[in-house]
């Protein structure tokens, strides 16, 4: 029964990874950039949630929403200022810029508020109850349901709305998308907005679940989410979701087996294995072009 509990913990952790990984994968899908500043958007989102709960007394859901909106704007700002002018530059230039933006955000936040960690306030009642003998906390349930709902909304946006179709069109073929009359710049901004909003949500959820936040908290989850995105197949949205969940479960299982020090190593071993044996990821396939 302890296993059921471990799996549930893993899925909770995994859904946080998945939310972050979605932003990586969407941005990669559309401009082929690994946005290494994405983990820091997650951190900023977590702090926005923290301050809106502690300073303004907001509840969990308003704080979540506020953090998502602010992160969406923040993501668009980053894209417009740092990445847009590099659209035709080499990929390595954009990548280095992304690392620069990441450091700027991390140390910018430290400069503004200091490096000390904060304890996330208890906004969600933490009641444990028994399910088939496993202890399940109300927080796990909340994290799971919020993540699932956000992913469903994302799927609806991507598949049913005009902007979602434009996003898929641009990520498939920029020139052909232009010929449809799609405004590519706006579509890319929308992608950053949605991806960053999801990272903001993940930040708040992370804060509630793990209770401690600090300005460099985005680094490791950001890298893990990147691994999750690659695991699922970078650029593929369902891949990021599955990759995140798999990674979360693997990590908790490794911990549960008594190798908790190996948790982080497990994630990166997965990255190395996937890059060696299946670089296109679980959902990736080699696309053939018909002439």
């Amino acid at each position, binding site marked *: 029964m302890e296993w059921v509990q471990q799996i549930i913990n893993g899925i909770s952790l995994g859904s946080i990874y998945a939310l972050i990984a979605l932003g990586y994968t969407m941005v990669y899908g559309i401009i082929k950039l690994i946005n290494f500043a994405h983990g820091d958007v997650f951190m900023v989102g977590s702090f926005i949630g923290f301050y809106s709960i502690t300073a303004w007394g907001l509840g969990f859901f308003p704080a979540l929403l506020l953090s998502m909106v602010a992160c969406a704007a923040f993501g668009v700002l980053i894209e417009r200022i740092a990445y847009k002018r590099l659209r035709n530059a080499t990929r390595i230039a954009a990548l280095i810029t992304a690392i620069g933006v990441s450091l700027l955000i991390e140390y910018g936040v430290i400069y503004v508020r200091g490096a000390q960690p904060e304890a996330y306030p208890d906004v969600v009642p933490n009641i444990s109850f028994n399910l088939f003998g496993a202890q399940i906390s109300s927080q796990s349930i909340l994290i799971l349901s919020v993540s699932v709902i956000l992913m469903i909304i994302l799927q609806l946006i991507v598949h049913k709305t005009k902007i979602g*179709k434009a996003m*898929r069109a641009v990520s*498939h*073929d920029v020139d052909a998308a232009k*010929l449809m*009359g799609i405004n590519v710049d706006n579509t890319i901004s929308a992608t950053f907005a949605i991806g960053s909003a999801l990272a903001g949500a993940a930040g708040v959820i992370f804060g509630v679940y793990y209770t401690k936040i600090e300005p460099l908290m985005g680094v490791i989850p950001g890298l893990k989410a990147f691994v999750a995105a690659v695991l699922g197949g970078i650029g593929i949205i369902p891949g990021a979701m599955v990759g995140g969940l798999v990674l979360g479960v693997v990590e908790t299982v490794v911990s549960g087996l008594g190798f908790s020090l190996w948790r982080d190593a497990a994630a990166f071993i997965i990255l190395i294995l996937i890059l060696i044996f299946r670089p296109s990821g679980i959902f990736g396939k080699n*696309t053939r072009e*018909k002439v």
Partner: protein
Amino acid sequence: MLKVEQLDVYYGNIQALKGISLEVNEGEIVTLIGANGAGKSTLLKTLSGLIKPKAGLINYLDSSISGKPAQSIVKAGISHVPEGRRVFSNMTVVENLELGAYLRKDAKEIRKDFEKVYELFPRLYERRKQLSGTLSGGEQQMLAMGRAIMAKPKLLLLDEPSMGLAPLMVKTIFQIIEEINREGTTILLVEQNANVALSIADRGYVIETGRVVVSGPAAELQASEQIKLAYLGGI
């Protein structure tokens, strides 16, 4: 309808179009023929706003569209069916057609145009729920054309619609091009298959290394010895 004057286009330092001038009148089928690398596709891409010209004029319906972004050119009524179809292979036929109507807001008219496209290309209706990547080359060409028609263009730019298709499919596609033209859409057709292109066109331009070398009524071009030798396989 469309008037191009002294158009210069560069790829970096390489000049792809060297002072091209041409004209398309309303209701016509005009064809551009020429060998690989002559600059035909570059010209179409410049017309549809994918490439910015360095110099020259592009006037469409009496206003300049030179250097405007692609979306305002689509809005003005020019649709471009690119070389190699470029369908969104990860989306269904219906989704591709919907994207063709991306800038339009007249839901009722869009529904009518769906019907029109399905009438022109019954094959697309049969396959409307299929991912477009699973279509054959000819069907993808149909889809690319149908998608362009969904934008309700006044001027349709077609780049190598016969490329890689079986002769029978080429015939079908060209019959449909004529039909689209009869229904009132002006057509600028780029082709390497000069014979077929000239057989449906009103007028033609022959392009060599970025310049127009010969132009005239299609029948005249088809009869000219020089063009027969260079482009029509010397028959």
